[in-house]
């Protein structure tokens, strides 16, 4: 306990130095925190893999966002194969600019609820027999546009009355859902659709193909592709944040070493009266941990402020920072790594010296 008190006392004695080191440790931790939060946001919103359903889409497309279009006759082929469920959907992006772009989903009102689990936040869901020009909005979209059930949303210049607001917990919460017939009329697609959702484990498997360059993929494949698109970017930022963390560990090590050197006489006295080498390690570890812990808290606060102020949005697809338990844990482990790396060098160095001999020599 004495040596720990000495460690804390030394930090308090050099409180400005400790504060500045805390800020210096806070920067890489903030960058790492923010980066992990954006990655988590991307993965939690887009990397949803559905085990129960497959998606029939045009080959090479991101059918759950845009870019897939096929004839209704593909649906006949699927039904002819004896599938228990064939759900046609339209997925595209509509709007006049990227700022007002919306992900649009056209859904068959009688079967859509069987392939997508959603929770109504307010209002009611779309139901079979509903009149045209009704829409359900994802919670995030509704919040962004400040719309409530009963309000009107314009989709490609046409008014749709909002009947309900839903939440799925994925990118679908950025979507507007309208009936398949409305979507086909709106886009001028006739009877064409974007994709068919079919059950997994029946007549088709992931990787199968159909005539007309139609592929069968796992539902959620488009989201996974979207996540993969951003990976090189996040990889580069991870390199930078790890390098900044290493720099912080070096700076921490340098400061702890120099502080310990300033305290060498006190430490030598403690060693000469029976304190072991482990005590010296505990002394440094405590100082390093306190500094990094304070840096971690500062970094977390900074990252949360930046994360709230910024969101990346392009053509109806947005990435937001998500600060969940996993992100906090990963960032905390990163902080501990900085602390351990920053402590181990001065600990090794301090234990190399025979402090009592040094004291005698001085």
């Amino acid at each position, binding site marked *: 306990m004495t040596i720990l008190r000495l460690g804390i006392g030394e930090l308090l004695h*050099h409180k*400005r*130095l400790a504060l*500045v080191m805390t*800020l*210096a440790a806070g*920067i*890489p931790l903030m*960058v790492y925190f*923010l980066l992990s939060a954006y990655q988590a946001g991307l993965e939690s919103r887009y990397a949803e893999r559905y085990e129960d359903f497959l998606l029939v889409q*045009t*080959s*090479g*497309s*991101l059918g759950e966002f*845009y*870019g897939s279009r096929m004839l209704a006759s593909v649906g006949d082929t699927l039904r002819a194969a004896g599938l228990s469920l064939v759900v046609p959907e339209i997925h595209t*992006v*509509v*709007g*006049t*600019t*990227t700022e007002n*772009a919306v992900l649009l989903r056209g859904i068959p009102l009688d079967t859509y609820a069987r392939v997508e689990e959603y929770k109504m936040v307010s209002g009611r869901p779309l139901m079979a027999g509903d009149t045209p020009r009704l829409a359900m909005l994802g919670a995030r979209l509704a919040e962004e546009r400040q719309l409530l059930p009963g309000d009107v949303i314009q989709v*490609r*210049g046409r008014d749709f009355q909002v009947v309900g607001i839903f939440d799925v917990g994925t990118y679908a919460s950025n979507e507007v859902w309208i009936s398949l017939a409305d979507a086909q009329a709106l886009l001028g697609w006739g009877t064409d659709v974007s994709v068919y959702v079919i059950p997994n484990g029946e007549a088709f498997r992931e990787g199968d193909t159909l005539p007309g*360059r139609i*592929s069968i993929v796992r539902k959620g494949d488009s989201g996974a*592709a979207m996540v*993969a*698109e*951003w990976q*090189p*970017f996040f990889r*580069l930022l991870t*390199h*930078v*944040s790890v*390098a*900044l963390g290493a*720099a*912080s560990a*070096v*700076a921490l*090590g*340098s*400061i702890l070493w*120099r*502080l310990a*050197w*300033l305290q060498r006489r006190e430490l030598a006295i403690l060693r000469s009266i029976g304190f072991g080498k482990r005590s010296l390690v505990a002394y440094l570890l405590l100082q390093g941990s306190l500094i990094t812990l304070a840096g971690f808290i500062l970094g977390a606060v*900074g990252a949360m402020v*930046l994360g709230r102020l*910024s969101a*990346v*949005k*392009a*053509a*109806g*697809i947005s990435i937001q920072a998500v600060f969940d338990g996993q992100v906090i844990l990963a960032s905390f482990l990163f902080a501990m790594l900085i602390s351990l790396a920053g402590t181990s060098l001065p600990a090794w160095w301090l234990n190399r010296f025979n402090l009592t001999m040094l004291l005698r020599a001085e």
Partner: protein
Amino acid sequence: MSGLSFVLKDMLHDRSRVALSVIGMGVVIGGYFILAALSGALSGVLETTSISRNLIVIQNDMIDPSDAILEAHIIQAVQELMPGTVSRISPTVFRHTRVGGQVVQLRAAALEDWQPVHHLKLIEGAWPAHDREVVIGEGLAQSNDWQVGSSVQIFGSDFSISGICRSPGIAFATVWMPIDTFWALFDTNHHYQGLFVQAALGVDPDVLKTRLQNDPRLVDHYAVYFEDNYSRQNIRGVQDMSSLMRLVSGVALLGIVFGVYNATTLSLAEHTRELGILLGIGFSHARLRGLLWVRSLLQALLAFGVGLVAALIYLHAQQSSGPLVILGVPFSMQFTPWMGLSGLAWVSGLAFLGAWLSTRRMFNLRVVELLR
């Protein structure tokens, strides 16, 4: 000069501590340069302008051009302006598709339009001469390590890369395909999606744009953009990321202030006796402070050199593996002299700030206390 040599000797004597400070700050500066290069690449794409001043006519409520339909009477409306006002037109189709696991933009137009209208420049190989041949953009080729003759699968069919091209303006990770090949592949009832329009020599493209926008056949359902403005609008989202990168790189640079502050404060704490002796033999407080500032600046400049070299090596390694491609747009990170100069100014300024903060109480130092 004697002051500088004194500082250099002191740094040499303290080399292990100086080395640790320089390494720590060098990594921060290297990180700053990499983030600045990334931010520059993101915002550079948005600022890119092409000399072509091509116009593009497209349905006005389509974010994804592959959903658009270009009606025949629109092509007719523009054709009526040829050859006096419009020199060439090129009806084009677009598809976002995955090639080699990467989202790319597939473009198809008549082969004879590729050079005069789309300004494609062949840098390797040849233009497609056979079925199932395509040309790809250089960024895409580099990032996937594709060569002329490589085989790629597009929409479930195998294609051979006949050439690698460069295009002006905002470059997309693009695969170019002759229009007949596209029709055969996609069977989309021969619907074009956008019309590239080239103004005739001597015609102001702005005037042509206004004229087309006011044409009653286009006015309600079609928009006319300059080609790059249209592309820029579609990748506006990267601006958010660019701003974020700029902010983070700026915050990272604060590490210089902290690094210099810590190094100088510790030096002062470690060398109280030496400082006392120097003050005792006639050095003024101001001179001592000046020496400490020079010491801090030299450390920061050394760190600048280390960071610069580290960043250049990293960026070179990144570039050799091809540009970053996000949502079909290749971003090429480049280090510019301006980045180096502004980085140097920031590092010097922030080092000075750190040194000033740590030495601002130096005038309170008394020889007796220092030597006690």
